[in-house]
């Protein structure tokens, strides 16, 4: 399908933040993950573990300390000498267990007095450690309190008598987190060594009613501290300093052995952090608190497949733009012409004008942004860089005309009546006539920019949209969903295209459907209208709509056949999906011009190298 020069970019120095806390909601089957930089991510576990929303509350690092003073408004609990690091309510709400340093207190909620104070042994493998920090407590309905502490212990206490019932020494390092299943028959703990242990309540003998807690399974999916764990009915969820979110299905709870039974490890965000100016060959990288602008290098050499070409000019770091204030950056964008940069934090919107004079760049902030542009979820420039589209978090879409150094508010598309869903994905047609926007669930809206009115709404689909794009000339809207389905919808005809219907009828290749990262970007080849380029974190794919679709028997991932094969064989084995897995983990890929691609990779090793060193474990003589 052609030969490309690929700008292989590895200088995007992105480090995902460590996971601080995870919470699972059974009703909605969603998972909330908070990171150390203050972001909160919501994952929809029903929709192929897709990351639906990202929000930043105040952008600050918060250590969740709950002291008795903070719940003062309800009742003043007996004052404790040291701070409280963990809390758990009894399911009936009558008692609270609080983990502190060296002891656990049980409070009676009515009286506010401490019923029991259970001292935790400081001894650790015979050596007295200075302090024993209770990192987590769980209160079961039968009155059992389970504590995990910095001495590597999991302890069971009887809250009625205040006595230690059972002690499991499970780690040489801190046990940092605990989560109990709703049925209270199993719980999970995470240690600073990166191990997650599963405990289960099992019968002592096969048919006796007497049950006891037994440590059943250890899992080692992390290299660093497991700071947070959660227990869904079918899986153990853990996250920590090494920034991976791991969802480990419990095989005995999985009814059908399908792809849901596979381990999920989510490392990269399911959204774009990179935008690109094709005209000037610029890349804009979004970090938590700053933006970086890079210019790609160039070469005059040519070569054959696999060659690395000598650079005539290396890539330049042009700009480092720091945000003002503590807030995190939510979204950012550079205009196709490279003259505008816009970004938004939780409460402010910023627009900059860039001027290029030979090698010098000057940056000028556009002041007096209107009040309604307070915070944006997504920003997009039109292809000719004359218009700016902003999706606000209230669900409205603002259209702004950009003039030399100033702007004019053209129109605001108000959210559809009855919906409050905010739009988080935008796409504009290259001719500037159409704008498509999508939220997480309720379909894709297509607006006519010329007449400033809603053109049509693509029917909503069960799974959230992960990427959107409008093809040049045909104005076909290509939509990728989290269940790996791809639709093509003709905007002028207001219907799905013939090709889309064909592939829906035949179905995607099973290996295509089994990929576990969502498609995050779609683009088109300016000269080849039959091609669609899309990528996820581990592959990029060119779909050639003119070729036959692969069925489950054909090889989906079909590397370049040797040139000595005859054309007949090549043609026979060719199918519509041309996949390359050379670049991974792939955070961004786009077509700069007909023969040039840009790929932004973020090797995992580079991330690991920048994390704090993990707890050292002895390899020999253990």
């Amino acid at each position, binding site marked *: 399908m052609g030969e490309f020069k690929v700008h*292989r970019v590895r200088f995007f120095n992105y480090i995902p933040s460590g996971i601080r806390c995870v919470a699972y909601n059974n009703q909605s089957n969603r998972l909330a993950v908070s990171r150390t930089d203050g972001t909160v991510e919501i994952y929809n576990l029903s929709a192929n573990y897709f990351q639906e929303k990202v929000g930043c509350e105040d952008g600050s690092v918060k250590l969740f300390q709950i002291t008795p003073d903070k719940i003062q408004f309800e009742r003043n609990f007996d004052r404790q000498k040291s701070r409280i690091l963990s809390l758990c309510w009894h399911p009936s709400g009558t008692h609270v267990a609080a983990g502190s340093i060296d002891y656990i207190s049980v409070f009676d909620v009515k009286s506010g007095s401490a019923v029991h104070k259970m001292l935790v042994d400081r001894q650790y493998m015979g050596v007295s450690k200075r302090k024993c920090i209770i990192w987590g407590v769980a209160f079961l309905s039968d009155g059992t309190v389970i504590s995990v502490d910095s001495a590597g212990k999991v302890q069971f206490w009887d809250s009625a008598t205040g006595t230690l019932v059972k002690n499991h020494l499970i780690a040489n390092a801190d046990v940092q987190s605990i989560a109990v299943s709703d049925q209270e028959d199993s719980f999970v703990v995470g240690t600073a060594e990166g191990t997650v242990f599963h405990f289960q309540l099992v019968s002592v003998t096969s048919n006796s009613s007497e049950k006891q807690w037994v440590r059943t399974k250890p899992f080692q999916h992390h290299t660093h501290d497991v700071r947070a764990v959660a227990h869904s009915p079918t899986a153990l969820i853990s996250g920590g300093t090494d920034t991976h979110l791991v969802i480990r299905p419990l095989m005995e709870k999985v009814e059908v052995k399908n792809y849901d039974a596979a381990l999920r490890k989510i490392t990269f965000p399911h959204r774009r952090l990179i935008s690109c100016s094709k005209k000037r060959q610029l890349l804009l990288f979004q970090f938590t608190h700053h933006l970086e602008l890079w210019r790609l290098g160039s070469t005059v050499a040519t070569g054959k497949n696999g060659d690395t070409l000598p650079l005539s000019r290396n890539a330049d770091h042009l700009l480092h733009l720091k945000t003002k204030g503590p807030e995190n950056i939510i979204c950012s964008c550079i205009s196709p012409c490279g003259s505008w940069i816009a970004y938004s934090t939780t409460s402010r919107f910023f627009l900059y004008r860039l001027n290029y004079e030979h090698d010098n760049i000057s940056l000028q902030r556009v002041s007096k942004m209107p009040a309604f542009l307070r915070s944006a979820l997504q920003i997009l420039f039109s292809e000719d860089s004359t218009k700016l589209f902003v999706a606000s978090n209230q669900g409205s879409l603002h259209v702004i005309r950009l003039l030399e150094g100033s702007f004019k508010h053209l129109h605001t598309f108000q959210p559809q009546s009855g919906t409050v869903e905010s739009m988080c994905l935008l796409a504009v047609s290259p001719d500037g006539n159409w704008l498509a926007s999508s939220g997480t669930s309720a379909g894709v809206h297509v607006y006519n920019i010329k007449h400033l009115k809603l053109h049509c709404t693509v029917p909503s689909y069960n799974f959230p949209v992960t990427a959107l794009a409008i093809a040049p000339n045909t104005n076909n809207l290509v939509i990728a969903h989290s269940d790996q389905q791809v639709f093509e919808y003709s905007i002028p005809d207001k219907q799905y295209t013939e090709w889309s219907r064909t592939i829906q009828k035949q179905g995607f290749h099973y290996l295509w459907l089994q990929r576990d990262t969502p498609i995050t970007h779609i683009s088109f080849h300016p000269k080849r209208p039959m091609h669609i380029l899309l990528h996820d974190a581990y592959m990029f794919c060119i779909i050639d709509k003119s070729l036959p679709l692969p069925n489950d028997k054909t090889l989906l991932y079909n590397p370049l056949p040797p040139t000595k094969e005859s054309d007949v064989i090549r043609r026979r084995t060719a199918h519509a999906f041309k996949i390359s897995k050379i670049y991974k983990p792939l955070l961004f890929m786009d077509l700069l011009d007909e023969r040039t691609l840009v790929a932004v990779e973020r090797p995992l090793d580079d991330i690991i190298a920048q994390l704090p060193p993990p707890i050292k474990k002895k390899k020999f003589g253990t």
Partner: protein
Amino acid sequence: MAALEEGFTLSAVPLGAGPHGLLGVEQSDKADQFLVTDGGRTVILYKVSDQKPLGSWSVKQGQIITCPAVCNFQTGEYIVVHDNKVLRIWSNEDVNLDKVFKATLSAEIYRIHSIQGAEPLVLFKEGAVRGLEALLAEPQQKIETVISDEEVIKWTKIFMVFKHPVLIFITEKHGNYFAYIQKFNSHTLSKYTLVLGQEEKSVIQSFTASVDRKFISLMSLSSDGCIYETLVPIHPSDPEKDQRVVRSLLLKTVVSDDARNGVALTVLDQDHVAVLGPPLPSSKECISIWNTKFQTLQTSKELSQGTSGQLWYYGENLFVLHGKFLMVIPYKCEVSSLAGALGKLKHSQDPGTQTVPHFVNWETSRGHRLGSQNSEQSKRILRRRKTEVNVQNPASKQLLSAIKKDSEKHIEEELCKFLAIKPTPDFNTIIGDIVSELLGRHKAEPSFYPRNSLMQLIQTHVLSHSLCPGLMEAALEKADVQVLQLCLQQFPDIPETVTCACLKIFLSISDGSLQEAEINMESVSDYSDSVQEEKMEEQTEVLHNGFNAEEENCGNCDRELNKKPQDAAEETMSCPVIPKRAALLNAILHSAYSEMFLLPHLKDIPAQHVTLFLQYLYFLYLKCSENATMTLPGLHPPTLNQIMDWICLLLDANFTVVVMIPEAKSLLLSLYKFVKSQICICSELNKIEVSFRELQKLNQEKNNRELYSIEVLEL
């Protein structure tokens, strides 16, 4: 756990209305499609999952189909016989059977067999078999008569054995049954007479068979309601001779013994059979699944509208004519797990099937019936096959009676004869019985100790300690190290007490009596002459950065050792025990044990024996460490792990004693030194590890490509 799922009716058309009932259900070349031949004039092709017919063909009025239609798997065509002699071959596209290919043969056909991977075979009523191709080439060829007059084919089946078809058919003549096996790779026909045994009066009502490499296991359901099994060898020792095969009881009273018709049997897999028929005299007909291995009823399903007494099984489906309609009952046998048995796994149960838990009561199964006293299920009395088999196997019977009175020599001869016979499935139970009989006699008259016979029996590899607990006891009593060594090598389940008792004997027995014993020496090689070719360079002292750390830490013990370096060197060279004792001790080292149960018994070993054993173990360790792979020479030597584990065990159990014995002092010191050096190595390794990691990191960085490059990619 085997289970029957909810069945469904296949046909909307009543079947089996004709005088001949339903002729057959046969597989077609497509999975899920089956040819159903109705007794009258019709052949219907059904797609089971859709529950609908795909095609239907009938012969002309006046003609009658006499043999079920089959599919030729090689061509995909269908073949049917009408009026006994006329073959019709047609394909899916044909509409009218009258216009399709026709061949009239010279003899009457009993059945056409078709199986994947072979051409269809035609079995004639006179017992001759022909390939379809050869037959079609010359339809009027003469067909020979194989079976005698008045002999009638009752049942037939075809198997693929090593890619060649093997056909079995059963004939009957005046109440006697014969089995014929026709092999097509060698074109041999062997004939067997089925010996019915005690139940000679019963009439066989249904047959089924399965095949393994050597035998066809022929099961028959007799009119007494019991299932019998007959093993018919596929490769007969003497094909010319008329041979007899005995049948043995497999399951007792699976159907009511007064059920005269409407009973059928089919084998489902290795351990399961399906039985059709009324379980009790008064009850309705049932289809039930029995596990032949555990002799348990797995599940059953009532068929209230009656059946035709015919049962077919293909793939996962059982076909049965229920009332007037063909019913398909899917059968599933999932792998059962311990977790499943304990109730940890969920099992969805169909409301339509009732599962009757049925366990063998071993107490009552020894012959006497508890018949009527209990509920419905207990009427299906189960008996262990063993008792019947014992009676029926003449060689073992003879041997058992010989054991009771004859001399050791005679018993040996009888045993040789018995062992020369081809092993039957009940071989190990019989061997167990023989051993217990021998030991029983030994107990009664202590002078009787048939050692050679016992050794021969142990070497059959089928015995275990639990099968004959008295055997090792007797050998221990007699201090028969030879038998004990054999037992240690062969038995997988020796309790730790017995292992320890063996060890005591092995350590205490005098060298003199050992010399007489014949002991298997393969685990011992002559250590002294194994000249160390790959001997590791011996380094006595390690200098850490120029100074000797050991001198400061353990000056005393080193001096103790250094005092007599000559002694130590000598000690390492010679084995502390004679080779025969070493072989016995190696058998102990190889045996399986659980630390918890072994430790208390090790405490009872006298101190000097502990020291001796420790010395031997230490000697083995030194031998191990002489070569780079840390293994001992020889055929089946103890491994380093086994040696180390036993050293630890012995020291754990007897530490206080060993510390007190002066002879053990130098040994303990060398062990101490060894452990210390191990700790030293580990800590050094841990130190080096950091450096290695740094090196690895450097290496990685070098391999890492530049942060930015422009590459060419062709898609």
